[in-house]
């Protein structure tokens, strides 16, 4: 079962529920079968099967609820996000507290969470992410940038809460 473990990890991050993630992984393979004729040999199988999983998630109840509040990708809002500077304290915290990063990831909107996971955990290229999420390359770059800023913001907020 190619990518079985990684698909399951990704599904858990999307759904926040292991049972739903199992259902999603099974549904992904079912849909992969039905649509296998649409897969072109020589193209990226990994991006294709992640795209199926993500689309299955988006049409699930959890997915619909999670994406209701997700912003679109207004390229011109890039500058509207506050600039975030890491301090020595936040860097130290990143090194020492995996749990903090997990919480910050979990707190992100699903569109930010998924793109960060595909880039950093799955180590997909921008082209693969573009295929998996079905968005243009420019949007991959801008959304990734926004996701990183949002994560840094979340970490700083958590750090401030701990200090106070």
């Amino acid at each position, binding site marked *: 079962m190619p990518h079985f473990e990684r698909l399951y990890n990704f599904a858990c991050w999307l759904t926040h529920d292991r049972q739903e993630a199992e259902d999603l992984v099974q549904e992904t*393979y079912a849909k992969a079968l039905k649509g296998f004729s649409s897969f072109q040999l020589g193209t990226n199988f990994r991006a294709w099967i992640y795209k199926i999983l993500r689309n299955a998630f988006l049409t699930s109840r959890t997915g619909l609820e999670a994406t209701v509040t997700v912003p679109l990708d207004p390229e011109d809002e890039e500058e509207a996000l506050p600039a975030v500077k890491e301090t020595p304290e936040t860097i130290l915290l990143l090194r020492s507290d995996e749990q903090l990063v997990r919480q910050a990831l979990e707190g992100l909107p699903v569109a930010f969470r998924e793109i960060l996971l595909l880039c950093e955990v799955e180590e997909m290229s921008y082209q693969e992410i573009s295929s998996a999420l079905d968005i243009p390359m420019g949007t991959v770059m801008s959304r990734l940038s926004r996701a990183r800023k949002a994560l840094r913001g979340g970490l700083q907020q958590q750090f401030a809460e701990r200090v106070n």
Partner: protein
Amino acid sequence: MVCESWKAKLDTYLDGEVPEGEMRTFDAHVRGCPSCSADALTRVQMKRAIQVAGKRYTPSAEFRKRMQQKIAAKPRRSFRLGWTFAAAAAVILVVGTLTSVYLGTRSGRDQVFSEIADLHVAALASSSPVDVISTDRHTVKPWFQGKIPFAFNLPELQNSEFSLLGGRMTYLDQTPGAHLIYDARKHHISVFIFQERSLPARLDRDPLSPKQLTFNMETWTQGGLRYFVVGDASAVDIENLAKLFKAAS
């Protein structure tokens, strides 16, 4: 500020997504600029932290077993029988389509062949098919030292139609092995090497019919090692590469 234009692209640079020519310029700047190098270091640490934190969930043994049991027990059930069986059948046919291995009543031997074909396809579908990239066998072979519990010889390829692309570690039934990837007239061929005694099934009896694989495959045992040569190249190419390995071992 002078560095603002660089910093705007720093994440893209660290993701390895700036064009090759620009990458060299970027390298030079980051090395010489304390501000940008400090910023780059922070961002790399953030990337690593996300990577570590993101690898959080693994499927339970029960879930994996349940999927495998469904596959083994109900490989040919109709989709109309329910979503569960549809999912199980999907797994079979996705893998089966890739490997074209008939899974209906497959034996331990067939499972090994199927796994080998899966490993070949999965590696080629990966964004980094090889961990050691070199056409030089004297670079690739030593790379495996300390990573696998055996040694092997790689053939000299001069004046042959094959070229070595690199290698990677692989596992078959929890047994570590070597995976080498060769190019032959734009076809990629995988060579897998494992310790024979570690493999679950005897593979020489009743060899798999070529009709059961869209890939061509050769397998043999030599010096206590089990070799598999698999790929979508012609049967002649697969056989010729196998001969080179047999001669080298």
